[in-house]
């Protein structure tokens, strides 16, 4: 695990510590300097199969580490035994074994695993060990699942998310999903996987070219672009519940890059509609109400992304890519097409992804003069408030297609040499880089809304 992290760090040349110099440039979303020191001793188990224990402990540790809101203290440094129960926390001498230097533990996650009723039951606790137990008890919960590897994995995810929430950082991402395109089956198809790269599943079998998967806000439908044979690319909808394609209108020429509105009622997309170039349209999810938003006469407008938190009173906001001034650049507009404005970014900028809190935009950028011939592009974050950008990746490869996680702290993106990509996640301050895929070529990730 540690080796993979170091490797991902080196591969991506992502700043693996908080940006010190960037704080004057932008309003960084993670509270930079003071993360709780968190200890997570192994959970003692009673009659539980060793592989389930291993899965549970590893997934719990990785979820808490990847959250990027705590500083994990390694188990090899612990001097105290794991609590045998909550009663141990009443003993000040026991708590001091954790809080004393050099460990300086502030928060402790512990619990027990056992078998009950034929299934796996886990008791999980979060304590502020700097406080007596009355004030220190932040979480106490019991989780039950079938006694399978997947059951143990899901319990760890739920407990990790509950810990993150109890620490005050809002909903975690341990149960979220990522949709993406993979060619590992022999053709580019839509796949989904857990946020940490586990359980990849092939969702389409169309044997053509699939691009741009987008999960709906309610998590039940997936929109994507499909091109089969010499046919034109079209928007398709897939039910993630029934695994069947759902009806959606087809249009003359190419249709591509679908994007869900935050309430799930509409899709924005780009289409030629029989003309030579792509324009942005919106349509109701049931296929009615087609509305044209851009009129660029010969230049392409595509890759829309909706603001998940538009200002009160607005009908919605969309960011998109347009080549109306030459090289593609990023624009914003109202969801009725009015007030189209270009972001002040020169050169080739594409693939915008609007952050869940509405305050920033992740995108991919080849800066003019900086890498036009090499094909290299990096992931950047644009902050609307400060009208500034921050560079997230610093490597020689092509980095593209960023997608924000629902915790507003993580971004997933594709990275690699030409024609070969893998998917990586990273926190917006550059910490906790992780490689998520390693089979075939994988691209165009999209993080679920929850």
């Amino acid at each position: 695990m540690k080796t993979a992290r170091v490797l991902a760090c080196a591969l991506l040349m992502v700043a693996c510590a908080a940006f010190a110099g960037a704080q004057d440039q932008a309003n960084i979303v993670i509270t930079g300097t003071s993360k709780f020191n968190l200890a997570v001793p192994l959970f003692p188990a009673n009659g539980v199969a060793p592989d389930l224990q291993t899965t549970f402990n590893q997934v719990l540790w990785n979820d808490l580490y990847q959250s990027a809101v705590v500083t994990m203290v390694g188990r090899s440094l612990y001097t105290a035994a794991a609590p045998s129960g909550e009663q141990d926390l009443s003993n000040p001498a026991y708590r001091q074994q954790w809080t004393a230097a050099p460990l300086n533990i502030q928060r402790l996650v512990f619990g027990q695993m056992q078998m009950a009723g034929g299934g796996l039951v886990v008791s999980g606790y979060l304590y502020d060990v700097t406080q007596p137990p009355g004030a220190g008890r932040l979480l106490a919960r019991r989780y039950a699942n079938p006694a399978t590897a997947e059951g143990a994995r899901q319990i760890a995810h739920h407990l990790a998310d509950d810990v993150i929430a109890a620490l005050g950082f809002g909903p975690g991402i341990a149960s979220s999903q990522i949709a993406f395109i993979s060619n590992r089956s022999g053709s580019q198809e839509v796949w989904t996987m857990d946020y940490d790269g586990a359980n990849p599943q092939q969702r389409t079998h169309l044997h053509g070219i699939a691009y741009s998967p987008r999960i709906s806000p309610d998590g039940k439908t997936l929109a994507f672009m499909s091109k089969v044979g010499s046919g034109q690319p079209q928007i398709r909808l897939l039910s993630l519940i029934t695994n069947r394609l759902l009806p959606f209108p087809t249009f003359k020429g190419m249709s591509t890059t679908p994007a869900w509105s935050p309430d799930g009622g509409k899709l924005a997309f780009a289409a030629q509609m029989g003309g030579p170039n792509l324009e942005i349209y919106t349509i109701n999810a049931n296929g009615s109400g087609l509305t044209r938003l851009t009129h660029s006469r010969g230049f392409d407008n595509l890759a829309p992304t909706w603001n998940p938190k538009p200002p009160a009173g607005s009908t919605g906001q969309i960011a998109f890519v347009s080549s109306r001034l030459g090289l593609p650049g990023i624009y914003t507009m109202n969801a009725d097409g009015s007030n189209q404005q270009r972001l002040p970014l020169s050169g080739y900028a594409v693939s915008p992804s609007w952050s869940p809190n509405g305050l920033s935009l992740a995108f991919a950028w080849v800066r003019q003069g900086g890498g036009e011939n090499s094909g290299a592009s990096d992931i950047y974050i644009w902050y609307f408030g400060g009208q500034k950008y921050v560079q997230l990746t610093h490597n020689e490869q092509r980095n593209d297609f960023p997608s924000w996680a629902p915790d507003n702290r993580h971004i997933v993106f594709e990275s690699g040499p030409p024609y070969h990509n893998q998917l990586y996640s990273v926190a917006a301050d550059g910490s906790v880089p992780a490689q998520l895929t390693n089979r075939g070529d994988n691209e165009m990730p999209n993080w679920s809304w929850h």
Partner: protein
Amino acid sequence: MESQQPSSRSLVAAVASVFLLSFGMAACGKKAAPPPPPPAPPAAEAPAPTVTLNASPTSIESGQSSSLSWTSENAVKVELDGTAVNLNGSQPVSPTDSTNYQITATSADGRTATAAARITVSQPPPPTVAAAPTTGDIGTFDEKVRDAFFDYDKSDIRPDAQMTLQADAAFLKAHPELAVQIVGHCDARGSAEYNLALGSRRAESVKQYLVSQGVDASRITTNSVGKEQPFCTETTEDCYQQNRRGHMLKGGQ
């Protein structure tokens, strides 16, 4: 479907497999040599040399190859058709006509032994004569209808592409029964989504130019693969240019 130029990697693989095949077949086709005479009891006279020669396969078509292999005993020198070779060994050969090969082994005291092998070479069947062209040189589409190339991030027809497309238009007008599909391609850089659209604009741009030169629009279909299905994959300016094109295909593929 769209014709593909064989990549250099697949050519190397094809050649390598022919080599492996010929060596493998040589090993499989080897006939069992007659057992050597039992060693003579210690005596003043040196043992006589022996040699065997085998060809595998013994029949090939002109242009194919076979393999000669030989073994010798009690020899200090072995010559294959007059050329010195190892005492035991094998060698690929590609005779264009049926050939007899002869091998000679010489012992220390100058006695010789010889063996022969024959490879029969048959000529491939004559090429089928193309039917007399009626209204179209179908076989020359790929030669005559050339692709148009583009600048970075551009879909306008630059001067060299104009000349190419003028010639293409002349050919297409001379063969009105032919349909053509134009597939837009892009280089490796930039967004796959954006490049799919750029490829479409390139194909449309080529179509419009052909129409302006008098080719009937109903004969032309357009398509785009963006940066997929590249013609080359190197990260060089030369390869990027190779991929920025409108690729011309016979319609209906």
